């Protein structure tokens, strides 16, 4: 296996960064369970998916998380934090 290019859409950027994903899109303020947006918001869902796929062809730094704001999503949410040990 030579490896398969991947891009992650995360709503928990700090948590998912621990797994060292190679390319990551964080749609800012989307809540858990809404990776692509809210139900029925197909135009927004398409834009999020296009933005994620575009990271495949851009010169992103391996491991970098790209944050994009989507005002049409509406109310925003704070992402979960990584629990600090000790």
């Amino acid at each position, binding site marked *: *296996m030579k490896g398969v290019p991947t891009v992650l859409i995360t709503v928990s950027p700090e948590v998912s960064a621990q797994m060292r994903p*190679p390319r990551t899109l964080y749609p800012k303020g989307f809540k858990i*369970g809404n990776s*692509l947006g809210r139900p029925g918001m197909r135009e927004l869902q398409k834009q999020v*998916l296009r933005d994620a796929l575009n990271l495949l062809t851009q010169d992103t730094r391996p491991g970098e998380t790209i944050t994009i704001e989507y005002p049409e999503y509406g109310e925003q949410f704070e992402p979960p934090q990584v629990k600090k040990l000790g």
Partner: protein
Amino acid sequence: MTFSRKCVPFTPFDRELSKSTIAIVTAGGVHLRDQEPFNIADELGDLGYREIPPDVDSSQLMVTHHHYDHTDADEDINVVFPIDVLRDIESEGFIGGIAKKHIGYMGYTMQLKAMYEGTAREIANEIDKGSRADAVVLTGG
């Protein structure tokens, strides 16, 4: 923010998206209604995964996962498993095609080593050998 010091497993992508086939792998607990649900009774988590065919009717997909609120996914599975969205951008010519195999698993486990060294490798192998995907979109819950 704390980052791991291990290297990032970066696979270059040297294709055009409009000629590329895309697969979806989700940790959101998505599976077909007639597939065995993930075992949410096991406190250690379910290490299995389900194959989802490319021609699936999205109304035949459901979520079994008890570590996030999937009310919105119950209403529109595309919020975690964007199969209809993928079809839309394929018809618009943004991508070249939809892979022959997609994967759902339950992204909660207390068996990290088994998930990382077992399930994840099995899923990668399914995608690499069986899906003809040029790239994969990963989603969580």
